[in-house]
């Protein structure tokens, strides 16, 4: 099911495995469903039907000019999961805040929740993406990439140029920056869904993770060695922790 229409947008969706469903959302700008596809998803697919999708504006999904706030993105998520029974939900970074927003709006649809490196306040997501200036170049973009990918992308030009084109298009042609700046802080105190919060010990997002852990009743905070791109920095450990959390 590579392309489906949700909220009137052509969205790129991939699935792996079979079993109870889990849906995985990725982070902004340099993220795509590949963030999960080559990291935790294959491990989870041993026991789950894993559905991943490219957020609007990212990967191979359509890039509309508006709607990068978590409420609209949670609406996309709702449309993309209409056919599923209640499912587990995992999100990285902005995708984690989308997952949280979805779980707060549709608690009956979410079995278990995992937020990986969700930034609080939401606008701090922009600090992570220091590439989002008006004059992004392959060099500034490289500097902002996860360390593990930097060497790979630095080997040549095609990947860097394509990444820059994506960043420039998102910044110039969409409301993404304004949407992130205007995003309200989520009130997660009413959440009654078993929640895992996974953060990196070197990530600037960790204080936000601690705040979420204090706000969500019963949430478990797991700190793994790594930075914001924890699915890369602690690939095996994160996959194992997600598997254990979803198993209950």
């Amino acid at each position, binding site marked *: 099911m590579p392309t489906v229409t949700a909220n009137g947008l052509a969205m790129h969706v991939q699935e792996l495995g079979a079993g109870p469903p889990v849906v995985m959302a990725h982070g902004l700008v340099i993220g795509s469903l590949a963030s999960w596809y080559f990291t935790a998803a294959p491990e989870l*697919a041993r026991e789950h039907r894993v559905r991943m999708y490219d957020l609007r504006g990212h990967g191979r999904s359509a890039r509309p000019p508006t709607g990068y706030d978590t409420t609209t993105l949670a609406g996309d998520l709702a449309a993309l999961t209409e056919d599923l029974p209640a499912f587990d939900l995992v999100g990285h970074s902005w995708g984690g805040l989308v997952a949280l927003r979805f779980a707060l709006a549709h608690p009956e649809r979410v079995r278990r929740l995992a937020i990986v490196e969700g930034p609080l306040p939401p606008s701090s997501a922009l600090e992570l993406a220091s590439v989002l200036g008006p004059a992004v170049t392959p060099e500034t973009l490289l500097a902002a990439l996860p360390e593990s990918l930097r060497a790979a992308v630095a*080997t040549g030009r095609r990947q860097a140029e394509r990444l820059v084109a994506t960043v420039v298009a998102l910044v110039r042609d969409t409301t993404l920056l304004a949407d992130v700046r205007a995003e309200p802080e989520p009130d997660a105190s009413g959440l009654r869904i078993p929640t895992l919060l996974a953060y990196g010990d070197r990530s600037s997002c960790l204080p936000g993770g601690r705040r979420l852990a204090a706000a969500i009743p019963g949430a478990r905070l797991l700190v793994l060695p790594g930075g914001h791109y924890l699915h890369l920095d602690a690939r095996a450990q994160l996959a194992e922790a997600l598997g254990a959390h979803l198993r209950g």
Partner: protein
Amino acid sequence: MTNAEILKAVEESLVEVAGDELLVAGPITPATSFNADLELESIEFVALAEKLQQRFGGTVDFVGWISKKELDQLIALTVGELVEFIASCRP
């Protein structure tokens, strides 16, 4: 199916996914690296996995194979390694 035929099929799938600009630098050989030589984006690699799964069927567990590799092995992956893997899955 010989390894040369599998290589041809991988090349065709690559062009479908990322365009024939990939061939500008020269022919795809077993030594060609997906990252350093072809500079495939990760989302294109997902599309390649999907194409190969369609082409070779369920006997080729491309994603399972990938999941057992470390990140640095993935970054260094060559077309030849993929061809060998596909050949090893087929009766």
